[in-house]
């Protein structure tokens, strides 16, 4: 009964579609905004936001978690699943009227599925300016080796 109601074209729809196309072009369809997602994916906008980048030697995971202490994170890795959890507690102001409360307050956990050659023995993490950067080295044997032809 209500399906027809949203058939008008919102003035911003064309721009939003173009933005989606541009994002897909840069990041590839593996990160589609609307399509099928990894089973452990959290909804868009979950705290903390995560970006994962890859180089031939390592995988880099960035967690956008401002206002925390480096010790606040619990990072663990099992097989190729990296799990980062912690809690952010925001002190409530006494005698204050809140107009907006958008910042995340509470416990969080993000689980990232790493490629198979991620080496759990070679994990380093550092926290700066509110970003937790985790570097996971790749297993040596997975790197392509040049074979010399004699």
């Amino acid at each position, binding site marked *: 009964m209500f399906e027809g109601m949203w058939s008008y074209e919102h003035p911003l729809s064309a721009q939003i579609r173009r*933005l989606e196309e541009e*994002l897909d072009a*840069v*990041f*590839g369809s*593996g*990160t589609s905004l609307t399509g099928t997602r990894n089973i452990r994916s959290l909804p*868009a906008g*979950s705290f*903390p*936001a*995560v*970006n*994962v*980048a*890859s*180089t*031939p030697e390592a*995988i*880099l995971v*960035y967690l*956008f*978690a*401002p*206002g*925390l202490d480096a010790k606040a994170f619990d990072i663990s890795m099992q097989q190729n699943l990296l799990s980062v959890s912690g809690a952010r507690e*925001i002190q409530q*102001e006494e*005698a*204050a*009227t*809140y*107009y*907006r*409360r*958008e*910042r*995340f307050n509470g416990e969080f956990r993000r689980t*990232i599925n790493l*490629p198979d050659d991620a080496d759990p023995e070679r994990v380093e993490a550092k*926290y700066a*300016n*509110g*970003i937790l*950067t985790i570097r996971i080295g790749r297993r040596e044997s997975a790197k392509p080796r040049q074979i010399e032809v004699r």
Partner: protein
Amino acid sequence: MATQQNVTQAPEKSSGSRQTTQRNESAMRPAVDVFETSDGIRLVVDMPGVSKEHLRLQTEANTLTIEGELQFEMRDGMEALYADVRSTLYRCSFVLSSELDISQIEAILKDGVLAVRIPKRAEFRPRRIQVQSG
């Protein structure tokens, strides 16, 4: 003979942002807590990846614009596998009311969290009135 030139005026961008960035990428609106206490308004903004050098607070008339450029380690040959964050610019702006003293803004940035304090003008702060007895 003089040639007619058609000069198209680029549409004016929203207040405060014309001189700040020339980039076309969309800015992200950061998560903000806004609250009011008896002596003013406080903002707390989540801007992970922004350090002091890349933070810009600008006041124009009654508008406060906060912009921050986020930096994270990037290396050649890096390929994105997954991205929740797809822009490197945070921007938010607020229209402040006249009882706030914009010239007294204080801002502290720590671990990617910006805390801004805008006090009310002295005459607008609640004053205790002493009641004399007798």
